[in-house]
């Protein structure tokens, strides 16, 4: 069902956890299945220094969460905002059709975390 890359990220997820004092936090629930992801980002000079996540969801949800963190660490927030669900799925060598919706979770949560960061910046 899943590619080797999905299974690798599922069994050995990168960057699981929380960031003590995050620059931004985003949490989304997947409207299709009800699964949940929370993402923490640590931003310095508009560059994403660190990302951590927690996910309640299927194998694809956990794997996309994991690869998403890898894809954006070291990127600028503008670059990170360009990350699409398709790009996430592609980085995992694809997802089964009925699991494409799972890839939404990661990118959406990331975008939300960045929005949270931006809102906090403006509030300063």
């Amino acid at each position: 069902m899943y590619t080797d890359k999905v299974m690798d990220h599922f069994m050995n997820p990168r960057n699981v956890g929380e960031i003590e004092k995050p620059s931004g936090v985003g949490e989304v629930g997947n409207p299709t299945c009800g699964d949940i992801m929370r993402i923490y980002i640590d931003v310095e000079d508009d560059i994403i220094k660190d990302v951590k996540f927690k996910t309640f969801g299927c194998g694809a949800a956990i794997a996309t969460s994991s690869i998403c963190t890898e894809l954006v660490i070291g990127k600028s927030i503008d670059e990170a905002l360009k990350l699409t669900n398709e790009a996430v799925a592609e980085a995992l060598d694809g997802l089964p059709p009925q699991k494409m919706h799972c890839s939404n979770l990661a990118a959406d949560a990331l975008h939300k975390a960045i929005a949270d960061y931006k809102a906090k910046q403006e509030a300063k």
Partner: protein
Amino acid sequence: MRRVYLDHGATTPVHPEVIEAMVACMRDHFGNPSSVHSFGREAKKLLEDARSNVAKLIGARPEEIIFTSGGTEADNLAIFGVARAMRKKGNHIITSAVEHHAVLDACLALKKEGFEITVLPVDEYGMVKIEDLKAALRPETILVTIMHANNEVGTIQPIKEITRIVKEHGAIMHTDAVQTAGKIPVDVNELGVDLLSASSHKIYGPKGVGCLYIRKGTKMFPLTHGGGQERKRRPGTENLPGIVGFGKAAEIMTRDLPEETSRMTKLRNRLIEGFTAIPEVKLNGHPTDRLPINVNVSIRYIEGESLLLMLDMKGIAGSSGSACTSGSLDPSHVLLAMGIPHEIAHGSLRLTLGRDNSEADIDYVLQVVPEIIERLRAMSPLYDR
């Protein structure tokens, strides 16, 4: 790696004696049972021997058994068959919220044809309440279809009592016994039902064959049309190797039932004790009126599929909800009907035991599972504390 198959509710390995009987059938008696010649007559004999064995498993007479392509077709045949034959008498059908999709979806399809369907609710254990049934019966009720035991949570319904009420009312009673025939004692006359579905691949027979018991005198239409096979109730060249395999499986189950039941019950209870000792793990289904092979637990803060995948990496095969719906994203309709909240239903695990499981398998599972649960909980945003 150790492989522990704990998904016997979804399907079972085929018993070696069953394979042997099927090979003998295909190798030596390949004729068409409808043919006049000796090849045909030999095939016919195998067909009727199998019918006797299956009849015996459920206390029926051979001529009351119609072979089908599985439990799903048996359920559909029963429900559509009665509905279409009895339409003039009434248009009301009663079922329960925890039925298999083969029953629920057949009833929903009939709704589109103008039938009225009452779906009885269940209590927290997945049990239908007799008062609800009594209240639902109407003069125009033609059919009540309630499963013998639930495939997901293992709860056994009081079919004997239900049937008594339904028959007193004058309606036809069908029960889906796919999860019970061969696993616990099932006797059509003791239960009193008019129609009963069973399936081969849940009891160490091959997939793709099942049967519908039809009590003599029950009026029903066929689903499909063609040759005169199966007393015109189910046409098409008979699946002889499959039927022979089903017959052999039925014979073995009839023989081994008492012994296997008590062995399964012991293993099941060990699993239940082991799981419920883990914090925030709860048993689903009835604590005592449940299938000897069924364990179903909700593990809070964890999602089912990822749990299954982790178990799979350790060689343990289980399921979350029923296998047939694993392609779907909705949490189990059975657990929701029992009042279990969405995200807890999402984190349910079903382990179903079988002949090939040993005490050592249980040891292994109980050793592996707590770590996995811990790992997944550590990843879960719901498990903040």
